[in-house]
């Protein structure tokens, strides 16, 4: 499958020493890898679906 963004600059900013020790649990890598397997349009659609779900819930609570 075509992988967009292979040309993204590889420079990753170094963590600041005064930042809280928040780390990404690598057990959750499959979620990122799934997102990366999608096209940009598909990723946006996934985000839209999530927003739609929450919007529907909020509307139901108002009625």
């Amino acid at each position, binding site marked *: 499958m075509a*992988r*967009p*963004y*292979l*040309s*993204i*600059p*590889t*420079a*990753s*900013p170094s*963590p*600041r020493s005064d*930042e*809280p020790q*928040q*780390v*990404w649990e*690598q057990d*959750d*890598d499959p*979620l*990122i*890898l*799934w*997102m*990366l397997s*999608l096209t*940009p*349009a598909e*990723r*946006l659609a*996934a*985000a*839209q679906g*999530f*927003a*739609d779900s*929450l*919007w529907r819930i*909020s*509307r139901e609570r108002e009625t």
Partner: protein
Amino acid sequence: MNARPEFLEIARCLVENGVEFILVGGVAAIVQGAPVSTFDLDIVIDPTDAANGARLLGALQSIDARYLDLAGRDLRPTAERLATLKIHRLVTKFGVLDILTAIGNDRRYTELHGQTSLTALAPGLPIRILHLSAIIQSKEEAGREKDRAALPVLRRTLELANRPH
């Protein structure tokens, strides 16, 4: 919540009106693979570009944009406001649109432009998107707690995206 967020429709309106902008924030990160959530669209514009400001104003009028005002006043964007205010939090018929003139350490449109790529979010809809590395940098510089909370997943996304396949 106000109107249902419709990210693509806001972007489409801007593009169809010839507005030059850079997509930043949560949607920009999502489009590059970050599994984060967001309910608004964030863009950066050059407020000194009057012609672009006029096109933006037309786009905003077409989607019924008004300022998010806690007092409930109906305040609308104007050419003067677009040229002078640094942040515009707008409610539109397609959800919330945040228009910024700078992010991070006062990084503005001209500086950010070199860290963007054009990406089609739909057929015939190219959007200029800030690179994930620059999004990470801006969040580090902003230093807000919610920005810092997002950094681990953004960094990991960038790392995995850049791994050799």
